[in-house]
């Protein structure tokens, strides 16, 4: 008997973006082994990510007419205060170029095509000049 392997990339995405999703990943794997399609698997993973993105994990939403706050409200508030966003310094992360990446890019431009710096400064000055012209034009129309 051959066992089907669930999409590894989907599981990696789930593990990466939903750290506490091990039971969910297990449920999805169990359903996949029972015959669900890869498309269904991916749809469930993307939906879970979407739901998590729109749901504040530390949200304290009492049900209607609830007279008591959740038992772990204080702990969740404390964790929220301690939470900080990591800053990528190596420039290797896919979501964006980090600090070292920007420095490396600047060095490359300086060494290989220094004329691009002049183009950058010229475009900045042109942008400023254009902005001044637009503001002056609007003031003249308003007056």
């Amino acid at each position, binding site marked *: 008997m051959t066992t089907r392997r669930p999409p590894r990339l989907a599981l990696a995405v789930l593990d990466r973006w939903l750290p506490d999703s*091990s039971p969910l*990943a*297990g*449920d999805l794997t169990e359903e996949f082994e029972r015959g669900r399609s890869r498309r269904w698997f991916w749809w469930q993973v993307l939906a879970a990510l979407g*739901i998590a993105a729109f*749901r504040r994990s530390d949200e304290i*939403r*009492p049900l*209607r*007419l609830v007279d008591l706050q959740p038992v772990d409200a204080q702990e969740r508030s404390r964790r929220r205060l301690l939470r900080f966003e990591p800053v990528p310094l190596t420039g290797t992360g896919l979501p964006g170029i980090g600090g070292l990446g920007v420095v490396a890019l600047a060095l490359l431009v300086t060494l290989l095509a220094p004329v691009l710096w002049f183009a950058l400064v010229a475009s900045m000055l042109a942008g400023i000049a254009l902005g001044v012209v637009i503001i002056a034009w609007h003031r003249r129309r308003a007056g």
Partner: protein
Amino acid sequence: MGRQLLTDFELMILLAALRLGDEAYGVQIARQIEEIGGRRVLLGAAYAALDRLEANGLVSSTIGNPTSERGGRARRYFRVTPRGLRAVRHTRDALVALWQGVPQLEERSP
């Protein structure tokens, strides 16, 4: 005052968990709602609701043993707490009270 009323999805989840007893975990709860309740369920939405219910003390959860058919991941079993049971009863009472005295709902379709 102080009565807890549930949303329709939360009510379905609690009822499914009560029906399943000791076998109430994510997939089974979703399957019960789909097969008996006739509502499609995203597993992510079910877990989001279960997390919320647990934070409000209406369910509790325990982690089972990892199994190979789940890729070495454990099941998370849910159990309705006495407070959750009270919330289900209160919600049912509120719905039944609202149901009564509505003429449009008293006629049965053939």
